[in-house]
Every structure is written in C-alpha cells, then in structure tokens.
C-alpha cells in the first residue's frame, strides 16, 4: 500500500543550556491502508511535534520515521500538511493558492487550472475562486488550505488542529466534508486535535498520548460505522473511555 507510515521508537529531545528536555519518548506507530488516525493528548505532549517530524519540518532525535520504507529527510510532496493557523498566501486568490504546489511541480497552466478547479469544487468554494484570503471566513480559509494540499495528490495528509480556530458550527460542517474527501481521495490522514468529540467523530483509531514526555498511551479502535451520530450511546461510550484515559494524563500536568 502506497504511503505506509511507520514510526519506530521515535524520540525528540531539545537541548538547552540547562540540559535537555525530552519532549517525545519512544513512540511507535504504524498507519496502513487508508486509515484515519486522530492524535489526542494533554497540551505540551508533543503531538504537533510528532506531526511536524513526520512532515520533515522537525528532525527526529532518536529512532526513525519511515514512509514507504524510506526514512523521512526533509519535506516531500507525498506528505501534505495542513496547519492550524491560517496559512494562505494573502497575495494569491483562492485559485492561485490552490495552484501553488502544482506550480512547484512545473505542471502546465491549463492542467494546473483543471486540477485546482476540481479541488476547489470539492471543498465547495467554486464561487470564491477569485477571492483573496482577506475576503474569506475562517472556515473558507481552511477549506482552501485543504484544497491546496490535496491538489498535489499526497498519499498522506497530516493535519495539525486544522479546525481549532473555528466556531463549533463551522467545525462540524468541515468534519463531515473532510470525511467525504477522505473517502473520495483514498488517503491516510493523521489528525491532531484537542477535541475528543472531534476525534471520535472522525477517526478509525484514536491514539492517546501521555503527558510530557509524550508516549503513545493507548490506541482506541473506534469501529463505529459512518456516518456517526455524535449522540449515539456507542459514540458516547468510546468518548467517555478516551476522556477518562486522557484525564489521568491531564491531571499529571496539574499535579506538578
């Protein structure tokens, strides 16, 4: 299967004058097929760092990360990344933002436009092709960012709290849209979130991380068929279990 991810005893250590800080310790994880994995954990547990290391934006201190069996060295277009912050290029229209990655791949303009159109349609922004980012709402900006990332055809999509800055309504809508896209595009997604509700709604598996140093505490198989209803007893049950598991970790933080 293309785009298999394997994290093999990955650790991240930061060196400073006072000594070293172990942010992530001994994380092993495999993502196969077209899995949708959510990473949850107390703040500061290194879930974003883990994601950045998979994307090649941060280096690994120990262990290794393999994509299709090859260790990650720097960024590669096979791995798409969606940031929490709004990161559209403000001088480019929606259309030109989505074409950004295609320009880098030296794809001819006509083909570039067609591909961009497809993904702009997919995220429902056909009427905003020529708008500039400052004319868009937060939700529209993130949808554009998702379209921009998908346009280059990544096998893996890494998302770092992409809906974290959005209001609850928009968030719910985007979650549903993301699942549709994921289904259509047949890609792997690793999705970092604060929200257990979001994780249970989206993921095949939810990986719970411990307080710093971040380790994988347990991986919960959600196993509820989609579309899921947020208030189903089954959904509630899994959410409770994850919340309990997470609570002991958050408590460790406040006990210190």
């Amino acid at each position, binding site marked *: 299967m293309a785009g298999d991810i394997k994290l093999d005893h990955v650790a991240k250590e930061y060196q400073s004058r006072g000594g070293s800080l172990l942010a992530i310790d001994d994380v092993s994880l495999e993502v196969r097929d077209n899995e949708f994995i959510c990473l949850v954990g107390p703040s500061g547990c290194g879930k974003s760092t883990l994601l950045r290391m998979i994307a090649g934006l941060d280096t690994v201190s120990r262990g290794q990360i393999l994509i299709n069996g090859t260790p990650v060295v720097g960024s590669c277009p096979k791995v798409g*990344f969606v940031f929490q912050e709004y*990161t559209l290029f403000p001088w480019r229209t929606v259309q030109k933002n989505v074409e950004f990655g295609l320009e880098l791949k030296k794809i001819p303009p006509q083909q570039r436009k067609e591909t961009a159109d497809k993904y702009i349609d997919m995220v429902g922004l056909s009427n905003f092709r020529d708008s500039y980012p400052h004319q868009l709402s937060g939700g529209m900006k993130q949808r554009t960012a998702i379209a921009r990332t998908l346009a280059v055809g990544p096998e893996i999509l890494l998302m770092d709290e992409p809906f974290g800055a959005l209001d609850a309504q928009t968030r719910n809508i985007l979650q549903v849209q993301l699942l549709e896209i994921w289904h259509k595009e047949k890609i792997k997604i690793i999705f970092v979130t604060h929200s257990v509700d979001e994780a249970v709604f989206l993921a095949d598996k939810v990986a719970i991380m411990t307080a710093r140093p971040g380790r994988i505490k347990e991986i919960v198989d959600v196993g509820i068929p989609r579309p899921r209803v947020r208030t189903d007893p089954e959904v509630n049950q899994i959410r409770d279990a994850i919340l309990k598991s997470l609570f002991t970790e958050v408590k460790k933080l406040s006990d210190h």
Partner: protein
Amino acid sequence: MPRLNKLLMQISGILAVIVIWELATTYLHLFKPVILPPPSTVLVSMIAMVGNGEIFMHAGYSLMRVLLGFLVAAVVAIPLGIAMGWVREISYVIDPIMEVLRPIPPIAWIGLALLWFGLGLNSAVFLVFIGAFFPILLNTVSGVRSVDKKLIEVAYTFGARDLEVLRKVVIPAALPTIYTGMRVGMGIGWMCVVAAEMVAVKYGLGNLILEASNFLQTDRVFVGMITIGILGLVINVIFQLAGDRVFAWQKGVSKGE
C-alpha cells in the same frame, strides 16, 4: 455633512493664510516686496511662467533627475536588501558599512558628487541616489525578514527549494514593505534633487530658486517653492494610489505600515 464641514475648514485655513499675507503686504506694507511679495504678485509670476512654459522646463529637469536617481537606487538597493534579508552572512558583512554611511545626510555628499561627477546631470542623479538608497534598502531588508515563518514552512511542505521559497513566498510577501521604502526614498530623493540643483547643475526647480534669489526676484522664489511642494505632493499621492491598487490583497493583513 461632516465631510463637507471638514473640507470647508481645511480650505479656510489656507485661505486665511493667503488673506492675511495679502493684507500684510499690499495694504499694510509691513514687508518690502523683496522680503515678502504679496500672493497676488506671486500668482501673476506663476501665471506668466506657466504661460511661457518656463516652469514646465524647470520641473521637467527636476523630475527627470529625480526619476533617474531613484531608479538606480531601486535597482541597486532592492536586490541587495533581499540578499541581506535572506542570507544572514551577507548582512553581517554589509551591515557595518551601511551603519557608518547611513547617518551622513545626503546633502553632505555634494562635495564628493562635484569632485567625482563635476557640474551636471550625474552629480544630481548621484545625490538623489544617495538619498533614496537607504530607505529602500532598510525597508527591503526588514520586509524580507518579517515574512511570516509559517508561510515559508507551507512552501517547504510542498517540496519547494530555497530559491523557489524566495521567489514565490518571501519576495511577494515583502513587496508592500519594499514599496513603502520606495515611497519614502522618492520623497527624500525629491529633497536631494532640489539641493543638488542649487549647486551642481543648470535648470531645474532648485536652480530656479537660487537664481531668482540672487536677482532678488522673491516672487519667482515663491513660485519655485510652491511648484516643488505641489509636485512632491502629487508624486506621493500617485505612489499611494498605485500601492493601494496593487496591494489590495493586503487589506486586513495587520502588517506593513
């Protein structure tokens, strides 16, 4: 209505100055005409100089010189500033040189300008260059350095190489700041050209002022000064309007000026 009121008040300020000036000179004879001619006399001279094209000739020379010096400054300062902002090592080498040269007022370069380029166009262009160079350089450096790091990271996640990041992210993001530098540089260049024309060349608005002063033609001095003021204003407004159009995407981006 409040807008109209504001406009009326703004006009009334200027009108009051002119009326008091006319009263003090024509009617109260508080000043000799050679010290302060009445505005009506200045207006008559101006109409005459517009009529025979003299003022356009001088303004044309000044504009040509300022434009040349400004272009050379932009062509040198923008690439240098991008290099300094993008590569730390380059700025380590260049920074100290700039820090020594920058506090020297452009006018102080007149001595060298005359020795190096003699009387003539090149001296004036050189002085404008010196005046416009530093604002453009400093704004370019700071524009390049203050590009949102997240946008650079985004480009890397798409597999962009360093030069592509520079071309597709850093330079477009820095353009509004670079443009601000150009606007400031143009303003200073305009001051420099007037100074240069008083010393180094024939014709031009600075030259007009100095010659008129030598012949005690105070009204012509005023015409020259007013023309300089109006043209400076027009240049600035043109820059501003063009910038607002080109950088419309910047609306809501809480950066820049």
